[in-house]
């Protein structure tokens, strides 16, 4: 049954214009990340390891992601859930044997897959554009892939949070407002010590996943807290299941 329900969610996405929102998310991150190309001297140092071109790109991307993702994930969740509020979809689904919590889980599987694809696409596109402008310095695959994996986890947890918020509170201003405030928290967390950033899940975890930072002498590698991000993913998953089970027991 879940297969048909997921297929149904994909069908809803066609009319909800999810593709333009996802394209905006990818294009926003790629545009802000590739702004590094316009900084003086960048294109001259694409073959020079001391110019740290990949580090600059990764650093730009780790600022672009928390700038755009919280709002666009809130928009995605809101779009996917608002139709159920507007057209009494919760009640319709329940009478078809799909309680509200189950619908939320199905929405998470379907739209979550799109979020994962978009996150992988933005990381891949930044790498591709870096290669296209001629960066010949050794590619830091470990750090790049580690960051991408961490961002996938944080994005999914944030998306799950917004899905629950949008499902629980009919006024979509609340979900979007939380998304905008999340951008402030995510960016402020980048300047916080690790222990403090951990206190602001899930937005603070964008900062914990950062693999590089700009210092006076150039870009320096950081030790991203991948384990903390993993713990966030597990805790987020458990909480999402528990809360959606609660939704199942309530009347639509």
């Amino acid at each position, binding site marked *: 049954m879940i297969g048909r329900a997921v297929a149904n969610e994909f069908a809803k996405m066609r009319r909800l214009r999810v593709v333009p929102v996802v394209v905006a998310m990818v294009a926003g991150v790629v*545009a802000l990340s590739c702004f590094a190309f316009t900084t003086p001297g960048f294109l001259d140092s694409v073959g020079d390891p001391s110019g740290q071109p990949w580090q600059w790109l990764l650093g730009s991307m780790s600022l672009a992601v928390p700038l755009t993702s919280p709002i666009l994930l809130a928009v995605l969740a809101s779009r996917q859930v608002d139709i159920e509020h507007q057209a009494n979809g919760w009640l319709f689904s329940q009478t078809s044997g799909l309680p509200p919590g189950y619908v939320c889980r199905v929405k998470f599987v379907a739209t979550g897959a799109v979020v994962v694809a978009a996150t992988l696409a933005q990381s891949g596109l930044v790498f591709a554009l870096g290669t296209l402008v001629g960066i010949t310095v050794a590619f830091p695959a470990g750090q790049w892939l580690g960051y991408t994996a961490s961002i996938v986890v944080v994005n999914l947890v944030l998306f799950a949070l917004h899905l629950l918020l949008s499902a629980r509170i009919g006024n979509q201003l609340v979900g979007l407002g939380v998304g905008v405030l999340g951008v402030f928290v995510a960016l402020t967390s980048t300047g916080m010590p690790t222990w403090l950033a951990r206190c602001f899940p899930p937005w603070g975890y964008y900062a914990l996943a950062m693999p590089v930072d700009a210092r006076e002498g150039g870009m320096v590698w950081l030790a991203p807290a991948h384990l903390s991000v993993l713990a966030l993913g597990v805790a987020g998953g458990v909480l999402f299941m528990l809360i959606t089970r609660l939704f199942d027991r309530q009347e639509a």
Partner: protein
Amino acid sequence: MGSVRAEFLKLKRSLSWAVVVLLPLMAVITGAANTVVSGGRLEDGWHTLWLRVVIFYGLFPLAIGVAALASLVWRVEHHGGNWNALMGRHVSSLHVVIGKVAVLAVLAAAMQTVLVVGVVVVGKLVFALPGVLPAPYFLVSVVIVLACLPVAALQSGLSMLMRSFAAPVAVALLGAIGGVVLLMTRLEVLAVVVPYGLLGRATQLGTGMFVDSGTVTTGAVAAVVVAALSLTAVVVAGTAAILDRLDIR
């Protein structure tokens, strides 16, 4: 005037106050928190505090806040049979559109007031800065409110056309990113004819960031004000013309 009063009545039970109060306060709190957490000092007093609060706020959150308010203002028209009631109105389309933009202008002014009060309170209580916020920043605040008008008019038009609450906000984010790219690449002329770029430019007045010279000049202020008023007039006229051609659902 009746249209404007009606729009305010519709807002009475909405959550618009949350955007008006929380968004600028969040900008002030994060600007101050960044300074405290990094252990940094406000080297140039009020100027540094203003810069830390308003630059990022003007690049993304302000446009998105205005977009959310525009969605909120039009939300009521898309509910139940309200759209058909709107189509059977006695006032002209222009009056309806101006009423919506007027409400958004007042809300934008309220947001800017909260921001300025927040900066003054944080400057005095947290950083013990001498005196008060310098006068040019009050002028800049008025210019920022005026620069909000084209964004408000454009977002109002988008929210009129889109029934979804969130979709126009996504457009605003994309527009804000476009505005940031224009300002970062120093294409000032292009930036001031794009509503989102103009808003970003207005918030940078006197800061010395991106395309700004660092001082509030008459020329820069006049350019932003003229562009803001012209863009608003064009977008309001366009939105009214579109509304004229819309029909019942």
